């Protein structure tokens, strides 16, 4: 193992890790928005919205994320969508994870006992009041863990933007292999940094989950 080389390249990797973190945060936020909208659509009273939601989930979960990234980045300009690689990567990944989060959020809402809705509606609360004051507060607690699983997948999934040259961890590792011919060291550094990010986020989610437990 070439420790000298590692010491020379690691500042570049730290910078790349920062890009990976930014990608992850933005993707997660966009994913949560898409997931919330998707779940609302899937559970709408109107068939059109339910249909749109179902199509979104099945198309985006039914095709490789890499293809979705390529379509947006390479195919986008053809239909007038001009994005730089970071933007295209973030949007494609965010919308992709949003499809998974749609199902997570919907599942959490559906797993709240039906008696809760009945009790609230019986008191005279509207559908929306019931959702906001009774169902969502309970569903929010139930969805922390499964959303954590989605976020874990999303962080690892950010590696998929390397092929469109976003200078994140995987891309950086590949670039240095080109000049150093040391794939073992390069991928090891990248892997370790991913692990640190995932470890920290995982702990954050556990902490949130513990705090949100109903007493």
């Amino acid at each position, binding site marked *: 193992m070439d420790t000298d080389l590692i010491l020379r390249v690691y500042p570049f990797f730290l910078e790349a890790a920062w890009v990976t973190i930014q990608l992850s945060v933005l993707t997660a936020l966009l994913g949560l928005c898409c997931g919330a909208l998707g779940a609302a659509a899937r559970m709408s009273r109107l068939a059109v919205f339910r249909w749109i939601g179902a199509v979104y989930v099945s198309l985006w979960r039914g095709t490789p994320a890499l293809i979705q990234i390529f379509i947006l980045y390479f195919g986008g300009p053809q239909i007038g969508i001009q994005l730089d690689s970071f933007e295209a990567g973030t949007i494609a990944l965010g919308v992709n994870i949003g499809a998974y989060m749609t199902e997570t959020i919907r599942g959490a809402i559906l797993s709240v006992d039906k008696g809760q809705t009945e009790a609230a509606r019986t008191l005279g609360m509207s559908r929306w009041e019931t959702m906001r*004051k009774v169902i969502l507060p309970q569903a929010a607690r139930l969805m922390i863990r499964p959303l954590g699983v989605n976020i874990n997948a999303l962080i690892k999934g950010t590696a998929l933007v390397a092929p469109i040259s976003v200078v994140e961890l995987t891309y950086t590792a590949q670039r240095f292999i080109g000049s150093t011919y040391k794939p073992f060291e390069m991928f090891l550094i990248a892997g370790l940094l991913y692990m640190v990010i995932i470890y920290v986020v995982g702990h954050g989610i556990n902490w949130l989950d513990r705090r949100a437990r109903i007493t």
Partner: protein
Amino acid sequence: MTDQAFVTIKNAAKSFGKLEVLRDINLTVERGQIVAIIGPSGSGKSTLLRAINELDPLTSGEVWLEGVQINKKLPHRQYEAHVNQVRQDIGMVFQHFNLFPHLTVRGNITLAPTMLKGLSDADANALAEEQLAKVGLSEKIDEYPSRLSGGQKQRVAIARALAMKPKVMLFDEATSALDPELVDEVNLVMKQLAEEHMTMIIVTHEMDFAASVCDRVLFMDQGVVVEEGPPSVIFEKPEHERTRNFLRKHLSR
């Protein structure tokens, strides 16, 4: 409408898909009356109760409360607004309590009144204290439901329903999920409501309770009301064979 009783159910029928659950049910309840509904499992008791507040809307027939038709056919938006309004007047207590686990006892009681009647925090608190005192649970006001016994949960659920100042209370086997030693405390609260002349419709498997508290008893079987009358008649000299069979099984215990 002047000839109508307080609660009136006319020619009620209900199907779930092909399954006919209620057939040609007629029921009138006067203000302050207490009616028990008894009958074997699956006879449609819960469905009838849940039809009164539109939780399980009837397929055909009418439900009226104090001159207002509950199950009006209206365009969706108006229907929702109408139902949300009339439900405020109909309290319901469930077998499994259905307390809101994320809210304290106080929160459970004040949620709907503050939201729907615009009570101030102070008024809502006073209301919660008043209702809890009635069910004998003043000291539990800041507890979460998970810290209460089944009997206490059900009493809070009753207080929550009463906080909306309903005109009628519906009970669907309020004591069936309770350990035997916790049944009495809930029955006591219901008896107390009876003394205050609350109009109540009570689905129950407890024949003794029905006999001691109710003005009238309805016996249902297979979606129809087989017979109804004062408890003295239904329990002591029922007309129908089906009623006698049912009571033989339930009174012998």
